[in-house]
């Protein structure tokens, strides 16, 4: 059986307490067996198709394209998945893996709440006990998703420690996992954490890129020039990037949260401002001070509000396979409104970061270029946040 590498260049690894090491080894073994087991993969594809509604469309955004007057813009409609975001792709894979391993209890961290909702959904369908860890700040700003998780039967823990955001939710989920490692499966929501998680999540998200690649070949007869996706931990981005990895002519652009501006220190732009460090079991780029203390981060979007990034993204940056840029809260909100008005599609604030960068890039490109934007989630959860902003009139 082929082994999956535990590192991406210098990034990745397994920096976790000894208590969970055997669990990670068992997880790697079971995952390897599962993805080479045709019955398992068929069941995974069945739920993607019948339960989540895949494949998601690759939608030609005609109005936006005409308005911007540059390259053709396509939107990969991950917002049309069941539960409203790409997160369900990974959750279905991991829940099936949990069931295969005989685990009856699943836990997850969540930032914006989309991964928490997806995990609660999967747990409800497969009859598993489910507990979600969410920073207290995110519980406040993503109240709708908290209600959804509770409705689905999950227990939601509001995490008070640290900055009360996604980073602290991951800490608390790891602490719970260390405590109940023998009966619990930790469903990590992004391409982060100790090996083998970054690889597991990528393998269960790469369906986004595989579909998008086939769809654009069918519609345009060629590959796109740009693929743009937002990056917090980076699962939707890795999901769409990875299948284009060997297509060197396709430029991959990850968009991070510049928050109030990179110069203000209130941002979550790990790639732009971070240095190599270790957090949540992985070596990666990290927003930290000179002593390795992880710094508070800021983004209007709870899903991008994370001081680290998936190790494979750090590797893509290092080898120059992808370019990483950052857009501010303000630009993301403008894009949120713009896509709603132009195409009748309300994007998640996370995805609005990718749209915002497309709004800047596309007008500079000739009309024969093609841009795919990964619309990773829908924005219903963010309407209240946006409506409360003084610069937006609703």
């Amino acid at each position, binding site marked *: 059986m082929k082994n999956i590498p*535990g590192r991406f260049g210098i990034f990745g*690894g*397994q*920096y*976790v*307490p*000894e*208590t*969970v*090491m*055997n*669990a990670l080894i068992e997880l790697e073994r079971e995952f390897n067996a599962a993805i080479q087991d045709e019955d398992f993969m068929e069941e995974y594809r069945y739920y993607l198709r019948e339960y989540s509604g895949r494949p998601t469309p690759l939608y030609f955004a005609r109005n936006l394209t005409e308005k911007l007057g540059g390259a053709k813009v396509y939107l990969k409609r991950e917002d049309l998945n069941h539960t409203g975001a790409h997160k369900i792709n990974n959750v279905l894979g991991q829940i099936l893996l949990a069931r295969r391993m005989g685990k009856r209890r699943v836990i997850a961290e969540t930032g914006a709440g989309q991964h928490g909702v997806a995990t609660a959904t999967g747990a409800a369908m497969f009859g598993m006990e489910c507990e979600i860890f969410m920073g207290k700040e995110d519980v406040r700003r993503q109240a709708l998703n908290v209600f959804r998780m509770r409705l689905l039967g999950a227990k939601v823990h509001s995490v008070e*420690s*640290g900055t009360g955001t996604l*980073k602290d939710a991951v*800490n608390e989920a*790891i*602490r719970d996992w*260390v*405590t*109940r*490692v*023998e009966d619990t499966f930790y469903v990590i929501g992004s391409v982060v954490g100790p090996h083998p998680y970054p690889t597991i999540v990528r393998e269960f998200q790469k369906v986004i890129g595989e579909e998008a690649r086939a769809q654009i070949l069918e519609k345009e007869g060629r590959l796109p020039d740009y693929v743009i996706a937002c990056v917090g931990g980076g699962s939707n981005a890795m999901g769409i990037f990875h299948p284009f990895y060997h297509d060197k002519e396709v430029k991959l652009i990850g968009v991070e949260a510049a928050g109030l501006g990179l110069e203000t220190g209130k941002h979550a732009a790990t790639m732009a401002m971070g*240095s190599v*460090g*270790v*957090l*949540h*079991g992985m070596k990666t780029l*990290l927003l*930290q001070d*000179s*002593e*390795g*203390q*992880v710094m508070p981060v800021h983004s209007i979007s709870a899903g991008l509000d994370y001081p680290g990034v998936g190790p494979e993204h750090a590797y893509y940056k290092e080898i120059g396979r992808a370019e990483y840029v950052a857009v501010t809260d303000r630009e993301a909100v403008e894009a949120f409104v713009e896509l709603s008005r132009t195409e009748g599609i309300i994007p998640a604030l996370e995805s609005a970061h990718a749209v915002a960068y497309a709004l800047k890039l596309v007008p500079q490109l000739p009309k024969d270029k093609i841009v795919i934007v990964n619309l990773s989630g829908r924005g219903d959860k963010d309407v209240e946040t946006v409506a409360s902003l003084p610069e937006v009139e609703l």
Partner: protein
Amino acid sequence: MNSIDLTMNRIDKAFNNLRKRGQKALITYITAGNPNLEATADLIIEMEKAGADIIELGIPYSDPLADGPVIQRASARALNNGIKIADIMNMVRSVRQVTPIPLIYLVYYNSVFKYGIERFVKEAHDVGIDGIIVPDLPLEERGEVFDLSKQYGIHLIPLVAPTSHERIARIVENAGGFVYCVSTTGVTGERDEIQTNIKGYMEEVSRYTDMPKAIGFGISSPDMVSQLKDYCDGIIMGSAIVSLIDKAANKDEMLENVSRFVKSIKQVLQ
């Protein structure tokens, strides 16, 4: 002092002496800089006087994922005081002038990594540290820290858990100091009881090594210590002591309460 004393690590010396006297080690933990560094220095001396055999000093970290709420709060408090690693090194250097008690850093890997692994290990050795515990550095990742610790004559204390089983052989291989046996799955913090079958667990660890074995995590009372002591060579107590530090109204009360508690544990171990 003879030449053997000069080359022998203080942790090994402590266990040798205890073994000769038929006693078990009392290893106490406090977070450096909680509530401040002067208090930390005083607590080291006070705990030694009260009978502690080895002292662990936690280096405060923003994301202590192996720790429960008590040590998380202690860590946050120390960081709010602006404690830096250099301050802790300086404090240890001055404490080392007045006591030979073995001192161990408990430090998360990112602190060591970001400081510079060799710089950290060398400075720790130079100020008089005898061992390092890195709770998020398993066997698979420990190579560089392990080798440098050996080079500088301090022990990277190996951790095993009730879930380790066949991994124990490789974890203890060539390791020094003592085996830190995590009592139960979970994070640090006081518990009313420990669910693990300690007898079976410690027998399993003993099959792989003759090194001294100390049990830690969740041990909160003299009663628990008396139940555990026959299965090990040492007991590690952290959160129970840190709680006393946090509850004290002033410094005298803090030193007095910690001292009384350490004495009560030591009595059980004698």
